[in-house]
C-alpha cells in the first residue's frame, strides 16, 4: 500500500493534546445540573493512539466533542501544543478544526446524494472554490488505501463497512494531526468492524496523527497503544491490555 500518500503532512505535525481543569455541566430533565465531565489533568502525547473506554453516558462523546472544539467547557482549558483551543474565538476555532481535526462518527454521516469521491473531497469545498487535481489525486489515493475502487458510486448505495471507510478517508483528507473517532465500529457487523478498525489504526499510525478513539469494542481497543477509562475516577492512561 502506498503509505507515503497518506502520511503527507502539510497541516503541521501532531502536538500534545492537553485537557486541564475541565468541567462540563449539563442539566437533567428536572433542571438539576449534573457534571458530565470532570478532568483535572489529562495529556495525550503527540502521535499517540489512545482508546477511550467507558459505559454509555459516561462522557466519551462529550470528551471527543470538546477535543474537536465543538463546544467550550464550563471550566478549564484544552490546548493543542501551544494553541489554547478553548480560548480561540469561533472563526479561528473553525479554522483550527478544519486544519487540524479529522472526525469519524459512529453513523458515518456521509452525504448520501454525493459519490464516494465528492464525499471524500467535501472538506476541500469549505475553503476553496475549485477542486485541484492534487486534491482529487489525494482523495483517490486515500480511497485506494481504504480499499475503495469505484469512486463514482453514490454513498447511498454503499454497504455500511464501505461507508465507514469513505468516512475515514474523508476524515483524513485534510491530513489532520488529530484524528477523533466516536465508536467507529459500533454500527458495523463483526467482520466489517475488525477490518475498518484495523484500517483506522493503521492509517492513523502511517500519517503520524494522534488518534483518540472512543469504543466499546475490545478488539479495537486492543489495537491502541494505550486505553483510558472514563466514568470511574480521574482519566488515567493505561497500557492496553
Amino acid at each position: 500500500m502506498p503509505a507515503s500518500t497518506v502520511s503527507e503532512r502539510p497541516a503541521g505535525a501532531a502536538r500534545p493534546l492537553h485537557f486541564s481543569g475541565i468541567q462540563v455541566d449539563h442539566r437533567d430533565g428536572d433542571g438539576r445540573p449534573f457534571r458530565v465531565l470532570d478532568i483535572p489533568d489529562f495529556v495525550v502525547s503527540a502521535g499517540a493512539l489512545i482508546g477511550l473506554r467507558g459505559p454509555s453516558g459516561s462522557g466519551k462523546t462529550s470528551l471527543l466533542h470538546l477535543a474537536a472544539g465543538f463546544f467550550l467547557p464550563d471550566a478549564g482549558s484544552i490546548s493543542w501544543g501551544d494553541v489554547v483551543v478553548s480560548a480561540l474565538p469561533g472563526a479561528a476555532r473553525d479554522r483550527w478544526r478544519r486544519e487540524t481535526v479529522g472526525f469519524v462518527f459512529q453513523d458515518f454521516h456521509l452525504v448520501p446524494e454525493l459519490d464516494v469521491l465528492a464525499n471524500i473531497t467535501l472538506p476541500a469545498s469549505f475553503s476553496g472554490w475549485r477542486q485541484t487535481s492534487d486534491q482529487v489525486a489525494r482523495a483517490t489515493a486515500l480511497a485506494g488505501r481504504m480499499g475503495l475502487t469505484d469512486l463514482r458510486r453514490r454513498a447511498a448505495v454503499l454497504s455500511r463497512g464501505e461507508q465507514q471507510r469513505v468516512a475515514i478517508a474523508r476524515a483524513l483528507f485534510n491530513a489532520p494531526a488529530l484524528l477523533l473517532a466516536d465508536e467507529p465500529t459500533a454500527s458495523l457487523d463483526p467482520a466489517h468492524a475488525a477490518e475498518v478498525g484495523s484500517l483506522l489504526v493503521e492509517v492513523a499510525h502511517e500519517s503520524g496523527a494522534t488518534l483518540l478513539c472512543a469504543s466499546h469494542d475490545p478488539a479495537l481497543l486492543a489495537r491502541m497503544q494505550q486505553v483510558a477509562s472514563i466514568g470511574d475516577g480521574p482519566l488515567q492512561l493505561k497500557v492496553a491490555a
Partner: protein
Amino acid sequence: MNPLPMVIADLRALRWTAAAIVTLVALAVAIGVAIGAQERALRQASTKAADDFDLLIGAPGSQTQLVMSAIYLQPEALPLIDGRLINELARDPRVAAVAPLAFGDIARGHPVIGTTLAFASRWGRLPPSEGRLFAREGEAVLGADVTYKLGDKIEPSHAIAGHWPKRGVVDEDEASRRHEGHAYVAVGRLPRLGSPFDRAILVPVESVWEVHGLGNGHAAEDAALGPPFDGQRLPGVPALVVKPRAVADAYALRARYRQGGTMAFFPAEVLVGLYRTLGDVGQVLSVASVLNAVLILAAIFLLLVAVTGLRRRRYAVLRALGAPPAYVLLVVWLGMAGLVAAGCLAGLGLGAAATLAVSGLFEVQTGLRLSFALGLAELAQVGLILLLGSLAALIPAALSYRRSITAGLRG
C-alpha cells in the same frame, strides 16, 4: 468556499419536494403575471381598435352599446339617425371627414358593414393588401380574416341582434334570412388591424340601403359612391364616424350633436369608463394574486424550515468537518433562494404561455388581438416575490447558523 456541491446534494435529496416548490412558486407567479399582462393587453388592443373613431354620432341611447356595435362589431339592434346628417357634417368646415356605418347584415357569419371608401381605407391610412377597394355598388372589400376569397360571391343575410354566428360557415339561421337576389363580389382585402374589423366585410353604404329596399341615397341610379348623398329620401344610419379637423372642432361638434335627436361622444370617454371598471377588477385580481403568492410563499417557507430542521444533523456534520458557519448558511440559503428563483423564472414563462392562450381564446371571441408584453409592474411583482423568498430563506439559514454542533449532531 464552494457550497454548490452540497446545494446540489440537498436539492437532489429534496427531488419531488423541490419540483413541487418550483411548481407552486411558478403557479403563483404565473397567475399574477397573466392577470397584469392580460389587463394591459386588453386595454391596449381595445384602444388601438378605436383609433380611427374620433367622434361617434348616433341616436340617443347607450354610448357603450354604440361603441360595442360600431367599433367592436357586436351584433345589437340600434336606433337610426337621419341620413341627412351625413351631408350636413360633410359640409361642416370643422369636419375633416365623415362616414356612415351601417350594420345589420352578415355573410358566412361575418358582419357586413356599409360605409364609404374613405372609412374603408381608414381615412386613406390603410391601402388594401390585395386587390382594390370597392369602386361601385355590389363590390366588397374583405377584412384580413374573412374566409371569402377575392372574386367570391358574397350573399348577405339579415343578422339578429344578440346572435353570435360561427364565422366562416353559413348556419341555418343565416340561410333562412338571406336577402334574395343580392350579392357582393369581393374585390380586395385589407391588411390586418388586430381589431374586430379584420372579420368584417366592408361594402358601399349605398349597397346596404339598396339591399334593404331603401334606394341608394343618391338622386341618380348610377351616381358616384359616397357623399354628398343627394337622394330625395335619405335612409337612416345607426352610426356616423366623424374625423374632426382639430381638437377644438371635436369638442364643438360633440357639443353640437349632443342635442337635436342625436348623441355625440368620443369613444375614448366610454373606454376610460370601461377601463376604470376593468382596472378595479384588475386591481382586485392582482391583490388576490399577491395574497395567493404570499400564502404559497408562507407555506413553502414553513416547509423549508421543517426540511432544514430535519437536516440539522447533516449541517452539524459539515460544521464538525470544519465548514465555517457561513458555508452552512450559504448551503441552506442558496438552495431555497434557488428554488424560489427557478419558480419565478418558470412562472414568467408559464404566465406568458397562459396569457397567450387566453389572448388566443379572447381573439376568437372578439377579434381583438392582444399582444403579450411583460410590463414593469409584472417584473416588479416577480422581483418582490424573489426578494421576499430570498429574505425568508435567510431565516432557516440563520437558524442553522446559530445551532451548536453538538446539539445538531445529537439530532
